[in-house]
């Protein structure tokens, strides 16, 4: 298959060998699970259980609320111990409403949803509803509710479901293992999604550094007429949705549009597996494969983890973290996020937990920019990070916006390559947040202004009406008086008039 070049990109040290040959192992169900009601983009889910309720594995705990949201299910059987605020697995460390589930140790499944035996005969809506019911979100880390994305077929003419198995972040091998060990489930899930989307073709793109995954998937794909597996060059950020789309199809997604606008929808391979389980087995998303790795972890592993497991317990299962750990992050080292504490839960978007040493993070104090231009050369979005950063430093956010700071995908290539160790991505994230906030503020001000203007106009209209009414009344009165006066004088004038 012909591939297309993508702009820029870097080759970070991969460090996947720490876990790539470690088969997925299951984590014994922890005593207590902590399930945040917000494990996805969009509105938090609404609880459907109360403290003290006993639940079975797979039972609904909280249902989606609003157009973009996802349900939460019990990862094991047990009793709801509390519904309380706990630290979110997010760098902000803000509290978020969380269901605490005490396991009863039986790990008993609830009655599963009825399997859809022939999904290819089912309607798109039926599959979409099932995916929504199963609480599936994008498992590559973006956590966008998958059912919403499966609805794109309604508004766009789609040609390709592109399954993202690039896994271009260093360390992470969870997708690699899923593709190797569950290739059939991945391919089946992908075909079901393509059916729901109305996309005639499935292309599974995997970075060339995962030959075993490519081989297993090819074996499965060979059984299907419309599924193709393609190896893509090892080049970070190949796993970025728009870049992968361009590499595989040559189609460049216009700014501010979706890949669906060029006929392509991208889903992660682990999401496809979750869809398979939801549709064929009636199982909701209650666990996921997580790579636990990094130089500060004693025994790096790939683990099937019940959602809601505390990160600290997961790390204990891997022999604990050494004192050399400089940072513990969730996700890959390029786009992952630092954890506020080890007491936060594994959620649907947690692809990796990495404990990195100083040597691995290679963190240094920033030095002055020497304008080497590496950030420009390696930016996969064609941006000029050096210039954007200098605008942001000088608080000229409008100029930064003008040259494209909002087109930045925060992939981190510029920061990674910068010889001065300038935290460029941090600048851009700051600017994007600030610009969005200013926009909201401006819209709000405009709205307020419009309301005030409308109010003033209304008052003015009322006053005007009053004045007019008064004037009319006065005029009428005067007219009446004039008429009366005229009537009073009628006799003589009439006479006179008659004379005239």
């Amino acid at each position, binding site marked *: 298959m012909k591939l297309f070049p993508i702009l820029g990109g*870097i080759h970070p040290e991969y460090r996947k060998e720490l876990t790539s040959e470690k088969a997925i192992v299951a984590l014994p169900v922890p005593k207590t699970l902590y399930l945040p009601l917000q494990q996805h983009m969009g509105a938090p889910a609404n609880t459907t259980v109360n403290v003290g309720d006993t639940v079975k594995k797979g039972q609904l705990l909280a249902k989606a609320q609003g157009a973009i949201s996802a349900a939460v299910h019990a990862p094991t059987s047990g009793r709801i111990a509390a519904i309380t605020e706990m630290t979110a697995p997010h760098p902000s460390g803000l509290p978020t409403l969380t269901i605490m589930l005490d396991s009863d140790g039986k790990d008993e499944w609830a009655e599963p949803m009825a399997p859809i035996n022939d999904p290819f005969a089912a309607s798109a809506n039926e599959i979409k509803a099932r995916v929504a019911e199963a609480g599936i979100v994008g498992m590559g880390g973006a956590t966008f509710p998958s059912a919403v994305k499966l609805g794109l077929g309604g508004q766009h003419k789609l040609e390709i479901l592109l399954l993202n198995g690039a896994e271009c972040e260093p360390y992470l091998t969870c997708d690699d293992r899923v593709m190797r060990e569950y290739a059939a489930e991945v391919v089946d899930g992908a075909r079901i999604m393509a059916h729901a989307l109305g996309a005639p073709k499935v292309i599974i793109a995997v970075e060339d550094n995962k030959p075993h995954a490519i081989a297993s998937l090819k074996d499965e794909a060979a059984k299907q007429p419309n599924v193709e597996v393609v190896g893509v060059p090892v080049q970070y950020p190949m796993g970025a949705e728009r870049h992968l789309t361009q590499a595989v199809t040559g189609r460049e997604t216009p700014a501010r549009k979706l890949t669906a606008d060029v*006929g392509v929808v991208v889903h992660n391979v682990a999401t496809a597996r979750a869809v398979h389980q939801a549709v064929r087995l009636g199982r909701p998303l209650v666990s996921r494969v997580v790579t636990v790795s990094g130089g500060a972890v004693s025994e790096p592993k790939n683990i099937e983890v019940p959602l809601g497991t505390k990160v600290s317990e997961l790390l204990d299962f891997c022999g604990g973290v050494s004192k050399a750990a400089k940072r513990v992050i969730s996700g890959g080292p390029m786009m992952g996020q630092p954890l506020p504490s080890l007491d936060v839960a594994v959620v649907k978007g947690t692809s990796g937990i990495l404990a990195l040493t100083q040597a691995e993070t290679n963190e240094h104090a920033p030095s002055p920019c020497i304008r080497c231009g590496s950030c420009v050369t390696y930016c996969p979005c064609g941006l000029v990070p050096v210039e954007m950063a200098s605008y942001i430093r000088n608080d000229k956010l409008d100029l930064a916006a003008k040259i494209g700071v909002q087109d930045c995908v925060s992939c981190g290539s510029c920061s990674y390559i910068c010889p001065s160790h300038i935290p460029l991505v941090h600048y851009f994230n700051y600017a994007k947040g600030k610009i969005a906030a200013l926009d909201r503020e401006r819209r709000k001000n405009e709205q307020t202004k419009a309301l005030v203007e409308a109010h003033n106009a209304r008052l003015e209209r009322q006053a005007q009406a009053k004045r007019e009414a008064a004037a009319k009344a006065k005029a009428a009165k005067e007219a009446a008086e004039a008429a009366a006066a005229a009537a009073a004088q009628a006799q003589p004038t009439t006479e006179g008039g008659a004379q005239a």
Partner: protein
Amino acid sequence: MSIVIDKSGPFTHGPNNVSRTMFTVLAALVPATLYNLWLFGLPAIFLFIVTMLACLACEALCVRISGGNADRALGDGSVAITGWLLALSLPPWAPWWVAVVASVFAVCLAKHAFGGLGQNVFNPAMVGRVVVLVSFPLQMTSFVAPKPLFTPGSPSFSEALTITFGRGFTLDGISTASPLGHIKTELSKGVPVVQSLDSLPTIGEMMIGFHPGSMGETAVPLILLGGLFLMWRKIISWHIPVSMLGTLFLMGAVFNALDPARHAGGMVHLLSGASFLGAFFIATDYVTSPVSKSAQIAFGIGIGLLTWIIRTYAGYPEGVAFAVLLMNALTPILDQHFRPRVFGRTRKGEPLPVRGDK
């Protein structure tokens, strides 16, 4: 604004850093420098040391005055590059005070008056060179024929001390012009280029650098080797050197074909003066050259063009330093006008049309 640099990723970083970059550049300069120090003997070695020490001292002084950490500033290697390139651009037998004056202007004025590392608009080494060139034209255009170390005629230690630190060398006795200076002088006397070329080194001799010139500019193959090394290490890209040398060669070749009596050929332009040193080590200075590739090509073309114009029409035989400084002034404008195309957008910055939209 306040940035908490402790939050956003990435949480890994490539092996590169500023001093590693700078010291790679220095390493690339070593072969050409050693060869030329050998070629021009002890006075050149003394002058090289004086220039380096003067630049390092100026840097330490300026950083300390502005309250910075002098050790860290010296350690980043940037001032070592300035000193090194400045030394290479001086006549090898120039007196010590020329080097010191050039260093003060290069480091204190061109670099620190603009705010230090990364802030300067003009290439410091070239500012230093141009200041002494216009201030002391006699010393700056008195070149010597190569007198390699350990060969008869090479100055002894005490002679070398006298040349660099004493009364200087007897100008009439051994001074001679660089090839470009020679052509210029002869042209002004009405001698056509073709004829003046006869008394010049051949292309082959120029290739091996065996002719009068600044300390480090004559060993073209070794400079090219260093340049290729920097490209291989991805410190520089081909855009500036190729566009600059290409333009210079093209201008030389075209005008030589049109009027050989008045214009030296492309190869003469390439192999004489600071063309190669300028193309690979001076024009490519990060701080003062554009950051995007298309702007770099425009920048290189500009330097090539200006170098040829200055060499051909201006009063100075050598144009690279002036050309680089002039184009340095345009760098911000070039960067403004030659931005890369943003992914998903047209060159004008509008979002690409959605398929089907006409």
